[in-house]
């Protein structure tokens, strides 16, 4: 998609977009009708606006969530129609400019924590519907979020995003591929646009732009890892049926495949589970068509590793070591995991407590999600299986030491998962602290010190090379 487009096309489409916005601004004078507002609500749900623009227990869209990014926490803004603190004074054109192009009504640039590079795919018609809902369907909150965004230099200068947008923002709305079915095009539109799947699942380059050649190929998010969801049979979702994938997007779990946790659980709870069957099927169809990318460690499907087993014979009758950090993986499993995942890792009879083998969390060589699940548990909101809301799996951050998580994680990988997946003390220590610090700040600052202008030239050269 975007990054491969030529500059000429960018300019042409920017012009078209501008024209389109003006046309729509004129139409905005019309009173929004109920059907349009409702459609806007659905689309805003598909865009998962609430995930960032609300805090737990807070008022919808009133902002305040600190979104962790490699350059620091970005505080989501109040996007209720409040005239004093929200977007109540925005025209449709200004709303569109903010959502699709990352520029506020006052001209300041948004940070790409707001996935406007994806939302740029949204059609004018859908923008108008979302605008109608935001203006008429959201309760205004006349208060600013408690915190404000404070980023380090040079990112505190919002204008710095102009350069970034020049490189990574493609303003062209989605164009249907006439060679593909209506369903596929709907899926592509949702995945690339409002669904902003690539925001997490597509790896980024050194300057945090999505790498188009590796679309949905999987990316580390600092703590949790967004897995490869290309059509590859081993590394991606190629072995899933369209129905299985759609069901997973609705419930957050799939027997013998895996379960959503961390940010994916949030995406399902806030957004995906509210979408229509038709849209979920379309998303699944499209995702299964994304060009396959394979991790060479995945010599078989990530959902096919491991089998039932235990090492009870090794631990019955054997006292615990005096230093509990030296407990064996089998002892730790018996103590902390077996109550729910059962003695042989088989989970509960109906799969609501998942098996640890044939589970994509343990089937990958990247073990970050296994470690994160142990540290922070699996939390669901409003969508738990059998109404089991909240923590489906408790967090062990306070009760297991990092050494114990290493022993336990490796035991689980060896017995139930992909043995190529290793858990290390360094990894657990970093994940416990919230992920590895980004070198982006140093990189950009360093470059600035060496030569302010040279940076831009360097980037341009690099950009051209990518083309």
């Amino acid at each position, binding site marked *: 998609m975007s990054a491969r487009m030529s500059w000429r096309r960018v300019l042409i489409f920017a012009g078209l977009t501008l024209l389109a916005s003006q046309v729509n601004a004129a139409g905005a004078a019309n009173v929004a009708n109920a059907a349009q507002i409702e459609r806007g609500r659905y689309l805003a749900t598909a865009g998962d606006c609430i995930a960032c623009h609300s805090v*737990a*227990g807070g008022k919808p869209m009133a902002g305040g969530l600190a979104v962790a990014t490699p350059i620091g926490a970005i505080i989501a803004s109040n996007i209720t129609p409040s005239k004093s603190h929200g977007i109540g004074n925005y025209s449709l054109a200004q709303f569109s400019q903010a959502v699709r192009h990352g520029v506020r009504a006052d001209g300041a640039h948004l940070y790409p924590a707001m996935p406007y590079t994806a939302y740029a795919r949204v059609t004018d018609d859908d923008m108008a519907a979302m605008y109608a809902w935001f203006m008429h369907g959201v309760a205004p909150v006349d208060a600013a979020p408690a915190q404000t965004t404070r980023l380090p230099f040079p990112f505190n200068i919002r204008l710095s995003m102009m350069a970034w947008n020049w490189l990574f923002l493609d303003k062209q709305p989605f164009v249907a591929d006439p060679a593909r079915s209506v369903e596929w095009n709907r899926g592509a539109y949702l995945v690339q646009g409002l669904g902003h799947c690539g925001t997490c699942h597509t790896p980024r380059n050194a300057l945090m732009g999505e790498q188009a050649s590796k679309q949905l190929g999987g990316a580390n998010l600092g703590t949790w890892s967004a897995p490869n969801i290309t059509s590859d049979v081993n590394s991606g979702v190629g072995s899933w049926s369209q129905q299985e994938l759609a069901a997973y997007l609705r419930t957050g779990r799939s027997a013998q495949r895996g379960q959503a946790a961390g940010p994916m659980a949030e995406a399902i709870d806030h957004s995906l589970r509210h979408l229509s069957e038709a849209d979920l099927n379309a998303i699944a169809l499209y995702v299964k068509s994304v060009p396959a990318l394979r991790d060479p460690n995945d010599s078989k499907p990530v959902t096919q590793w491991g089998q039932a087993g235990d090492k009870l014979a090794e*631990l*019955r*009758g*054997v*006292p*615990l070591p005096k230093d*509990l950090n030296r*407990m064996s993986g089998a*002892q*730790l499993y*018996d*103590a*902390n995991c*077996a*109550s*729910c995942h059962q003695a042989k890792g088989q989970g509960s009879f109906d799969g609501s*407590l998942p098996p640890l083998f044939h589970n994509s969390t343990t089937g990958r060589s990247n073990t970050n999600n296994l470690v994160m699940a142990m540290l922070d*548990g699996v*939390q669901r*909101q409003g969508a*738990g299986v059998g*109404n*089991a*809301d*909240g*923590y*489906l*799996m*408790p*967090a062990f951050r*306070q*009760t*297991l030491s990092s050494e*114990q998580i290493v022993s336990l994680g490796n035991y689980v990988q060896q017995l139930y998962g992909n043995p190529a997946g290793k858990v290390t003390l360094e990894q657990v220590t970093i994940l416990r602290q919230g992920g590895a610090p980004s070198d982006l700040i140093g990189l950009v600052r360093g470059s600035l010190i060496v030569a302010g202008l040279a940076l831009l030239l360097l980037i341009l050269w690099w950009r051209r090379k990518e083309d």
Partner: protein
Amino acid sequence: MAEQMTSDYLVIGSGIIGSLAARKLALAGASVLILEAGPRVTRGEIVSRFRNSTRRSDLMSPYPSVPTAPHPIYQPTDSGYLVQAGPYPYPAEYIRQFGGTTWHWAAQAWRNVPNDFRLHSLYGVGVDWPISYDELEPYYQEAEEIMGVSGADNTGSPRKQPFPMEPVIEAYAMRRVRERLAPEYKVVSNTTARNSVSYGGRPACCGNNNCQPICPVDAQYHGGIAALQAEAAGVTIRVNANVYQLEHDAQGRIVAALYYDADKNSHRVTAKTFILAANGIESPRLLLLSASSKYPKGLANSNDMVGRHLMDHPSTSLTFDADEDLWLGRGPQSPSSIGTMRDGAFRGTHAAYRLDFTNISRVDGATRDLISRGVYGEEFERQLRFSSAREMSLKTVLEVLPNPDNRITLSSEKDSMGIPKPQAHYSIGDYTRLGHQRAQKDFAAVARLMGGTNLRPSKEGAYANNQHICGTLSMGRDAAVSVCNEWGRAHEHANLFFCSTGVLPTCGTCNSTENGVALALRTVDHILAEQGIKPAPAPVASAGARV
């Protein structure tokens, strides 16, 4: 003497009550240190020990006593830590470890009934509490929201706010018992601190049926969680800090606590306010150990009331085989009871009681019984199946009146740290025995209604203990016969407070923990009010981190 530490508030004991008191102080901005006699423990290692134990029904088997902070152990043999002076044995079990004894409770989190506070005024027995039910009601609620309590709404304890969650789903056996006993008896869901939904970052109960000795998933609230919450709120907990003496100044204010670390090095900790939260046996023991020339009988004890009025809930039971398959063991261990005898004019003559149904799986007990009787082969299998399906049991939870002769004193024997052991003087009074006799009518009726055969009552005159240690630090208006005032403040020491079930002046018919927690939360409110500090609004323990 090694290293000196100081803190605004010093809490002795990291059990559920001490930890929640400390947490509330810390949330209001205070600097709080907890000294815990025993070691730090985590759920995982306890679960591990439980699974590896050959004595699964011994609730203490996953909690071995440590020499640096011993606690009573009775199986396989009595360790002799709690010395028995008689005439009736008082084999109290408790845990001296991070989090305290509620690691192995069954999460019974009951409120008193309002008349429990006026036992003497209404029925001419026992004593009245210095406060009313209404005064304690908001603190019951606060405790219930922290712990995640649910229960039936018709148990005789009125409430102004709903429980924070629905009860755990009714176990099949309990449903059948409820159905078959109606309308003669009303069987109600027990009030328990057990999650029916994810709450406070902990999952819902999934029916492991080993609430005691350890809930393996923390669906059940306990002191270990409270201690972690206290730490999250900013409290420092020092483990392996076995306090053996409190020091006072010339005015009688407490100035320091002395403790032994695991190597028996002595340390001295100073503080402005001291909160003794070391349970109903270790707390009076420490007061008695702290005798000085100014206080030769021990601290707070000029009236010789410390350690007296020891109460618990003795139990007698009936086991029988029902005429239908019940399969006890699905769901939590102690989910239902009958509360009709918790209050009434009869309290003038005999003990009130609750009738509590067990839902503990019968497989382990029946297996042991059959093996001990030499049954084997097909007959073993047949009988095991029958007993596991049909056997059921109920017990009385009998009230005990405060009796000054039932007491904790210091023994002449020393423990493994060279500190005098606690000694229990105990007896079962006629009031309690008469309550047991009255309950025989109920036992017979329940057996009849369940089509019971092979009735096996507990041995006449034998009363099992329930580890609900009360009374030894009684609060009261009359300073001559109580140890502390209604705020838990020692009558004799202005900066010494008790947060413990020991302060309960009477024991009623419900497990003592929630009363102890609610009183402690009230005490902390009072302490903060005296300092002109408004307590921080308690963070709702909804889905979220453990704070």
